């Protein structure tokens, strides 16, 4: 009895029950594919966070109004809070008091709708700022030009817009030099920013940037800044820069002793570290879900093999009566189980690879090579071990018992 022969018997056995074979393979395929895809999604999201960490640089700080907490105390002291102003931003540019701060960009923000003819759009980001913002926020333009410090000083009605806003307002025609009306004020579009893509659920290209002076003069009045972006001279001086800016703002806002600060400083790097940690938790959870589905697939194989053995007990009896040795029966069922799991595993890897090419929940999956080997290996082990038990039960049946089975 050659191995080839037994493999042939096993394949024939699988072919006589096509639907069952298909469903079992499907179970394993789903298990393996979900392990690969879910881990790839988790990995992709940490990679995305890592990328934005690299892009932002670790030398960027953000100052916002309000204390660190959102509790009752923070609200109670609201009346005594001083808002962040453009003067605060200017104070931070003092090279002697803050030698580690490279540049400072104030941000005033508003919610406004922009209109061109019949087209309207509400940009998710509508900021008033000045040119230091470009570098601090990693914004560049793909066509047109930036607004300059001169534009800011003169309060000119010029704007940079993102691709999404441009498409919404101007379609396929170039927005450069065109005019649009935002919050009732007419602006000339002078630049189109480089596509940033979506980050999380926010479209980074639904964007309008105008000189901060224009925003304060024409739209918002002397509303407080929403934040100030501070760039340290390099990544090593971020902490020093944070200390310096805190000292300056404490002095300006009269914060001392027991008085709680009315502003908070966000260190982008530490924020992203937190995000990256939660992304790891997320990946672990996804991995666990996937592992469970793989296990369920394995139980499926055991179940199918048990049913197969019971259903074919009589056939096993016949085979034994005409001289089939125990080894041949054992091998046949073991090979059936192995073929099921290898086939399911291979298809799962294939589906996993294909599935990982799509963007899932705003994340571009990045396959973890180890997950492919792990999922494939586990599926085969499951097939052999869980398939082995029914197989050895089948092989150990006494022929007379097996033949009596109806």
């Amino acid at each position: 009895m050659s191995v080839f022969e037994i493999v042939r018997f096993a394949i024939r056995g699988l072919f006589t029950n096509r639907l069952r074979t298909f469903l079992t393979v499907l179970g394993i395929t789903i298990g393996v594919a979900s392990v690969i895809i879910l881990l790839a999604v988790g990995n992709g999201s940490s990679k995305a966070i890592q990328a934005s960490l690299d892009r932002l640089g670790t030398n960027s700080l953000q100052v916002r109004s309000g204390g660190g907490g959102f509790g009752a105390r923070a609200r109670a002291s609201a009346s005594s809070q001083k808002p962040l102003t453009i003067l605060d931003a200017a104070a931070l540019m003092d090279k002697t008091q803050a030698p580690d701060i490279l540049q400072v960009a104030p941000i005033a923000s508003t919610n406004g709708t922009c209109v061109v003819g019949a087209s309207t759009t509400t940009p998710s980001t509508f900021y008033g700022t000045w040119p230091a913002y470009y570098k601090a926020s990693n914004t560049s333009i793909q066509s047109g030009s930036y607004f300059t410090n001169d534009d800011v000083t003169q309060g000119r009605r010029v704007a940079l817009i993102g691709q999404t806003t441009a498409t919404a307002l101007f379609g396929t025609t170039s927005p450069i030099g065109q005019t649009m009306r935002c919050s009732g004020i007419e602006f000339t579009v002078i630049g189109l920013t480089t596509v940033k893509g979506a980050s999380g659920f926010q479209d980074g290209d639904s964007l309008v940037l105008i000189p901060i002076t224009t925003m304060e003069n024409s739209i918002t009045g002397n509303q407080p800044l929403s934040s100030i972006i501070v760039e340290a001279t390099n990544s090593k001086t971020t902490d020093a820069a944070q200390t310096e800016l805190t000292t300056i703002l404490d002095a300006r806002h009269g914060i001392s002793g027991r008085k709680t600060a009315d502003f908070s400083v966000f260190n982008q790097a530490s924020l992203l570290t937190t995000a990256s940690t939660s992304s790891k938790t997320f990946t672990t959870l996804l991995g666990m879900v996937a592992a469970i589905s793989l296990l369920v697939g394995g139980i499926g194989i055991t179940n199918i093999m048990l049913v197969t053995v019971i259903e074919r007990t009589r056939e096993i009896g016949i085979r034994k009566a005409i001289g089939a040795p125990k080894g041949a029966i054992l091998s046949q069922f073991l090979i059936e189980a192995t073929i099921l799991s290898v086939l399911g595993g291979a298809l799962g890897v294939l589906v996993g690879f294909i599935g990982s090419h799509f963007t899932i929940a705003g994340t571009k999956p990045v396959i973890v090579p180890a997950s492919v080997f792990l999922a494939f290996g586990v599926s085969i082990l499951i097939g052999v071990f869980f398939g082995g038990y029914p197989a050895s039960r089948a092989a150990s049946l006494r022929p007379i018992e097996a033949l009596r089975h109806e």
Partner: protein
Amino acid sequence: MEAVRAVDSVVDKLPVIEVRDAIKRYGVGDASIFALNGVSLTIEAGEYVAIMGPSGSGKSTLMNILGALDNMTSGEYFLDGIEISSMDEIHLSIVRGRKIGFIFQSFNLIPRTTAIANVELPMAYQGVKTKERRERALVALDVVGLGDRINHEPTELSGGQQQRVAVARALVTRPALLLADEPTGALDSKSTADLLDLFDQINAAGRTVVVITHELDVAHRAKRIIRMRDGKIVSDELNKERVA
């Protein structure tokens, strides 16, 4: 030379089946039942034997033991000179494959498998080469008159045809013993007659045939009739109709 001839004739006369004091007991203590209660039996090569008895007489148990499908509680069994009673499962599977050809009441063909593949199967387990296997299977199917049905699956064959495939499968390994358990139980009278004619031919060719049956007309085709009752042989006589 005389001595050699004497040895040869002893070997020739080695019985195909020799059972001594076979006991098969189910259960223990007072509740135990003797399915076989001290059966001794010798069947020589080339015999055609019918084993008869009502249900519960132990004839099926005897058939299972003769076919090495079941083990006995005590006693000795030699098949073609080989002691079976003390053999392990691995060797038993070889014996079943090489020494015995089974024919069952319910045919017991492998479902969804063609006639030729069914006939080839025992040879596959013995490691016969594919080409030789095919040739021998074709010859065997031809002998039973199914040369034109080789690619039919069991469900596409009549009962009589299925039983003839089973006969071809039993014969193809050239066994020492053809063992049939109620072979006509599921057949109509025409198929029964055909099958019994086939048994006559097989026996005429020198093969030992043992048929277990409760049908008189089937038993009467055999040359020797053994009757059983309550786990014992109650009569063992030559069939005067068939043996001159």
